[in-house]
């Protein structure tokens, strides 16, 4: 009791609790249909974006020379086969193709592409997961034709974490997800084992990694199985498959230990440490490769990422681009700024270089926000009691100082300590602190006191 009297001020505590109750109730108020965009804008806003967009110097960021981006435009299968043959002669470490390969061209073209793919030692193809809002599951996978997929492994290219909310900023990626197909799904066909030939990563047919190696993601008590096995059109995907994103599959073939480290961090989702746009990697147009206009060392031992990618097009199509935190328009309307393949390159670069961001867990962020809010309200109360005429001015000064400190801490921790302080809770709490303190001490409390007095 003595401790409570000495260190805990009831009014300040009650005001702080009210602040957090308001924080819980406010989103409910914004849930009306016509406030939804406002709610979405709030949710999409992250203080850390200001760091990327305005405070960081992109020119100081070094380029990653392990990755080469190659624009394949809308190449036909035969041209793509020629391109792959040239690339393959230059001994790349991994080739990742972020494009659905279709067998709808003439059979000679399809065969030449299949042959070129079969000659690639470490090949990753892309697939796309489809989310069913009703069942809240990814229930199907769209992928390249089976005549091509059998020569490599596949990773999903959905950038957004749960479903495809294309208007949100891509800040994180899921390191795995589960595909849950309804009844009637068929088992995986033969010959599509996860481990690619020659990678030595896992014995053929055993699945992704041996149980107990720490590689399997948290919460999955079984060995992750092969990613979706048949194209969406055929309608059967393995039930409850664990599937991995395209960049993780690429790194897995490049350096499996890096992926083991990623999974050892035990996060379902990782914040992407963006190095930059295409100019932070090697990039070359497919046509240049076909014309042999490249340095002979450019591809050797590298990760080659092939996709439709046209960074100099001033009027790109929306289908290929996403919003990233690097966009100088960190809030409000703007066109998406980053190609999907650029995001993959950033993720791959982060995993290879083990340049991860850490994030303060939400519960800790809430506790810290609570403490900060409580301390602010205590200081308000002190000023209100001792210097009532200065209260309004000084409370404003305190608010401005704390806001600036939060902004500084956010910047310092994010870019110097690689730590996301998860300050959104604290920011909203300190905005509400003063009005709620005043409402509580000057209205709610006296009214309650009067009510109880009358009753007694």
């Amino acid at each position, binding site marked *: 009791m003595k401790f409570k009297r000495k260190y805990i001020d009831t009014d300040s505590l009650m005001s702080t609790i009210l602040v957090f109750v308001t924080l819980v109730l406010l989103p409910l108020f914004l849930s009306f249909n*016509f406030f939804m965009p406002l709610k979405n*804008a709030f949710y999409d806003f992250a203080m850390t974006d200001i760091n990327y967009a305005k405070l960081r110097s992109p020119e100081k960021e070094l380029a990653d020379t392990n990755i080469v981006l190659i624009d394949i435009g809308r190449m036909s299968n035969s041209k793509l086969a020629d391109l792959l043959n040239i690339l393959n002669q230059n001994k790349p470490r991994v080739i990742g193709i972020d494009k659905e390969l279709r067998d709808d061209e003439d059979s000679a073209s399809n065969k030449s592409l299949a042959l070129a793919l079969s000659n690639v030692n470490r090949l990753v193809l892309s697939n796309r997961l489809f989310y069913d809002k009703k069942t809240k599951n990814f229930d199907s996978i769209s992928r390249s034709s089976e005549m091509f997929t059998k020569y490599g492994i596949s990773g999903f290219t959905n950038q957004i974490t749960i479903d495809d909310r294309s208007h949100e900023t891509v800040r994180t990626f899921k390191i795995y997800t589960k595909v849950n197909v309804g009844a009637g799904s068929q088992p995986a066909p033969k010959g599509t084992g996860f481990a690619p030939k020659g990678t030595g990563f896992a014995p053929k047919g055993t699945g992704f990694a041996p149980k107990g190696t720490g590689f399997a993601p948290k919460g999955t008590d079984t060995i992750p199985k092969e990613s979706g096995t048949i194209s969406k059109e055929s309608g059967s995907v393995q039930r409850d498959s664990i599937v991995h994103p395209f960049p993780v599959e690429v790194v897995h073939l490049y350096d499996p230990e890096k992926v083991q480290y990623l999974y050892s961090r035990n996060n379902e989702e990782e914040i992407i440490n963006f190095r930059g746009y295409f100019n932070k990697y090697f990039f070359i147009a497919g046509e240049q490769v076909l014309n042999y206009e490249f340095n002979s060392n450019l591809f050797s031992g590298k990760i080659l990422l092939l996709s439709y990618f046209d960074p100099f097009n001033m*009027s790109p*199509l929306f289908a290929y681009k996403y919003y990233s935190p690097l966009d*100088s328009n960190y809030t*409000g309307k703007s*066109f998406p700024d980053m190609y999907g393949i650029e995001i993959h390159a950033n993720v791959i670069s982060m995993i290879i270089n083990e340049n991860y961001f850490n994030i303060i867990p939400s519960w800790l962020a809430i506790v810290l926000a609570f403490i900060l809010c409580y301390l602010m309200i205590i200081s308000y109360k002190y000023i209100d009691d001792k210097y009532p005429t200065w209260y*309004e001015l000084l409370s404003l000064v305190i608010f401005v100082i704390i806001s600036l400190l939060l902004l500084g801490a956010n910047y310092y921790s994010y870019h110097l300590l690689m730590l996301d302080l998860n300050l959104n809770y604290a920011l909203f709490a300190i905005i509400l602190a003063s009005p709620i303190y005043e409402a509580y001490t000057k*209205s*709610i409390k006296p009214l309650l006191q009067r009510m109880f007095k009358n009753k007694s």
Partner: protein
Amino acid sequence: MRFFSIDNIITTGLILLILKFFFVIFQVDFLNQLNNQIQDFQINDIVFSRLKDRDAVEPDTNIVIVNIGELKRDKIAEQINIINRFEPKVVAVDVAFSKVKGDEMDRPLADAFSKVKKLVLVSRLSYDKEKDKIELVKSIPLFTQYAQCGFANFIDEEDFRTVRKFSPREYANKDPVMAFSVKVAELYYPYAVKMLFDRNNESEIIYFERNLNKYKVIDCEEVFNKRDSFSYVKGKIVLFGYLGPDVKTLSTEDNFYTPMNSNYIGKSYPDMYGVAVHANIISMLLNGRYIYAMSDNYVLILTIVLTYLTMAGFTYLRIKHAEAYESLSLVFIFAEFALFFFVMFSLLYYFNYYLNLKNMFFVLAVSEMVSESYFGSFKPLTKSVIDKIGYKFKPAKM
């Protein structure tokens, strides 16, 4: 307690000063973007975006839109020839042909244009900073000799801003020039444009009602594949413009944000191609469905009056209900918010009247803080300073 008091006047003045100078802080580089978003946001957009029932709007059958896709000039010429056979009343092309591309490309297009009875091409108003004047950039004379021109610029089309208004007429080198959509409407139905100019407004708010699903749209390849089945364009306005490589593929080219965007705030894709914006303006002119708006001066006066009433309301609550003041002031603010929303939305929804009380929402956000600061700090502190000075200069007793 008096309604007109020096306290209410001072607090109103303080709020108006804050309103005037607050946005200076957004000049800091990293807050600039936030400022851009605040400036672009209009509460009335919610009416177009969320409240109007778009499905209930009838399609406008007077206008047909043709997608030119990524076609070169010779193929656009072919499109125009195909459509022109069916005798549309006006053909308008929302594409600038400002450079010569050689006879192989240009000649077929010029031939196609020469066969059109009423043809409108776009021009563009361009501000020359050095000469400090507006210039008109037109297509090459080979094409313009067969056409009338209208400028395609919208107001606020830059920096990802939302297009809400258009200027019917501008002056380039002191010569009056009409907007593209106005010129089209004039050729189709001159009386509609007379009504527009009778309104004598420098700019008009666009009555956005329809996107591509409410106009007849012919996709790029469809023109060639169904070349004999466009009899429905007879006597109609046909607008040629860019709607992506095909209508289903969304492109960033000539694509704008409008109040019909379902995300009226925050990140979103643009929702309407330029040619569809022109179609909306033409529909508005032909149907005479204008939006009426209060002039900026009247809005300013109304804002001052409402600010004063708000501050007087706070003073009343402070004096008459001192104990419950904090809670009641919060209720008062929310009630005003709700009232303004209701009035603005109702006026626009039912009476096509655009009342822009955006500043009042800012006033409400800071009003309580200003009132508290004034009565809690400024006034007592000023009084004590004056008292002290008064005491100091009090003449000594003789």
